[in-house]
């Protein structure tokens, strides 16, 4: 999000810090300072950030930013200088002197904010600074799924994104390597369908193929800045869930056959036992249906064998 100019400033500051800490002479002539004629802040001593406030905006507009400080690093001078910065660059002619009133220093300024950025007010005396920063951003996508959505070949799948508040428009992109292609909803035969429900948007991808796997970007086109969310799609064939299914069915068939076999074996053994025991049993014994014996000897033996089986 840093512009080229800001990057240059940052690089120069880093270069300065590096040459100072290194102790060696700088490799070339120091570049002309791009910042205004104040001394560079790194020489003033540590800047202390007091607060950071997050602001969500959907469209450019005027905003009142107010900074309140109870005391300046423990001290309470009568007046204090305050200036404003946008994205690390001081806003020209923004410095004012604030009187201490009601036990605090307070300052309010109206800004016309056109794009996201970092607005901060800096309270400073000759040696130190205290800042309060306002981070202005577009809203963030809600409920982003980190796991991929799974779809099947020749089936359709629905990818959704949610954000609050409802943006003026949505746009879908498919990520191809390092580039993104806008999703074409008008091609024949229809493969993509976008359903815009305000705070929620759904992309239906029909007639899936394995090439449709990958990342899709849903972009909420707010006037201030677009908000992005990524949805991952994974397309698989029906063979994949079929494997565990067949494994379970095999297990079921095996167990059923095992149980039936054990029972048949127990039944034939009990039948043999009753045949050898003869009519002395007296009690009614029906084959091997009984798992547990009654008080008769022949069946007892068969049941013992059954138990061991």
């Amino acid at each position: 999000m840093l512009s080229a100019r800001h990057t240059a400033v940052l690089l120069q500051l880093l270069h300065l810090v590096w040459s100072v800490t290194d102790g060696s002479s700088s490799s070339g002539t120091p570049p002309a300072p791009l910042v205004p004629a104040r001394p560079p802040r790194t020489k003033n001593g540590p800047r202390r950030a007091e607060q950071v406030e997050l602001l969500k905006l959907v469209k450019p507009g005027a905003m009142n930013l107010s900074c309140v400080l109870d005391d300046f690093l423990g001290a309470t001078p009568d007046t204090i200088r305050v200036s404003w910065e946008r994205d690390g660059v001081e806003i020209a002619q923004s410095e004012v002197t604030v009187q201490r009133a009601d036990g605090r220093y307070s300052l309010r300024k109206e800004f016309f904010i056109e794009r996201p950025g970092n607005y901060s007010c800096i309270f400073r005396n000759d040696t130190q600074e205290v800042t309060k920063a306002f981070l202005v951003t577009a809203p963030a996508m809600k409920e982003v799924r980190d796991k991929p959505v799974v779809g099947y070949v020749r089936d359709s799948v629905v990818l959704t994104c949610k954000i609050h508040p409802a943006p003026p428009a949505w746009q879908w992109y498919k990520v191809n390597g390092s580039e993104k292609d806008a999703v074409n909803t008008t091609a024949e035969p229809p493969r993509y369908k976008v359903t815009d429900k305000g705070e929620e948007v759904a992309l239906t991808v029909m007639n899936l193929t394995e090439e449709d796997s990958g990342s899709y970007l849903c972009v909420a086109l707010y006037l201030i800045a677009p908000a992005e969310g990524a949805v991952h799609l994974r397309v698989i064939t029906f063979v994949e869930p079929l494997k565990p299914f067949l494994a379970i069915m095999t297990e079921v068939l095996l167990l059923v056959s095992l149980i039936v076999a054990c029972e048949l074996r127990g039944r034939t053994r009990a039948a043999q036992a009753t045949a050898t025991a003869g009519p002395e049993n007296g009690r009614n014994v029906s084959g091997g249906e009984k798992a547990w014996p009654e008080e008769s000897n022949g069946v007892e033996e068969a049941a013992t064998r059954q138990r061991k089986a």
Partner: protein
Amino acid sequence: MTPEKKRNEAGLPDGGWGWMIVASCFLVTICTRAVTRCISIFFVEFQMHFGHDYARTAWIHSLVDCNTMLFAPLGSLVGNKLSCRIAVISGGFLASAGLVTSSFATSLEYLYLTLGVLTGVGFALCYTPAITMVGTYFCKRKALAYGIAMSGSGIGTFLLAPAAQLLIERYSWRGALLIAGGFVANLCVCGALLRPVAPNGGLTTTAASADSEDASEVRQGCDPCSWLRGERGFLLRPRFVVLAASFVLLATGCSLPFVYLVPYALDVGVSYQQAALLMSILGVIDIVGNLTFGWLTDRRCLRQHRGMCYMLAVALEGLCCLVAPLLQSFGLLVPFAVLYGYFDGAYVTLIPVVTSDVVGPSHLSSALGVVYFLHAFPYLFSPPVGGVFGLWSLGFRIGTMWSGRVRKGSVCSGSVYKGSMWVAECIKAVCAVAVCIKAVCGVAQCV
């Protein structure tokens, strides 16, 4: 427990292979009741894919639940005529086929048919015969056996809810339904285990126990006229009529607190994590209630007073609902969840026990069919009322996916929840009175 142990006076083993039957019934309860509850985890996926609203998607769950109970008499009929084993195996096959075909669904109506009807009927063919079989093997330890068997729904929901989530994440709902179909095929294994208890010299294909005075009715089962006279005779007994009426009222009331607890808690200012914790407590204590109450009412001192224990459990459940609208904080709702969960588990365990006490073991199969059939209509009509809030099952709530929907539900007026809680308590109080009358008339015991 040695195999030489004598059978008790009623001729039932009270152990031995009976524990395998209990294990089989436990698995049947997991595969039917817990899977039914976990179907609601698929709702978001169905909603997204087919583009319908929540109320229409929720019909799937109420169809499955209702059909499982509605066709319970069919299950007990097949169990009586053929055998419980054949009933459960064919039910498992049907349910599995329903889930597998639903993985190819192209519309919500298709799902109504495959999931709602086919799977529901399959579950119905399994549920009643399996529960009946447990009753044929146990007498002294009947309540404990039923407690273990019925705890399957709570434990199953606990285990299957995260498993269903994982399957949906990996394979999407189609693959998850296919694998669920495979899992449900284990009902066939349960069916294979249901070895009938052979009464002395009687037919081995019925689920009846060796109750000598009803043995003749068992043998006449093939003749339609005597079947009507003999097996349906219990329907006209006053004790059974009162019991049946109390079950209808109970079924109408008992699902309401499960549906409304979380929105009610959110409405009185409990955070979402705490509300989910309340439901988890409810579920776990439900399982504890299943097991402990079953064991308790099997104790010799309490066995004679099983009817009173049942009445007590139901009355205390009703009492909890009575005071629920007065509970306005998390600290007060926790004891409510504990007590309500415990007595709900207790009552679920005792349904088959009390039914068998009232009608006798020989009619248990048909009576259970009728009892669960009476549960069907309340199950069908209370869901649409609760459908707006979208909270069916326990596992659904233990999962954390539904935070958005729950918050949406809680925005609706709190007076609806409070009103429904009062309705629930009135219903509970009425059926407690009904059961009291039944208890006063005297309860047949199996000592």
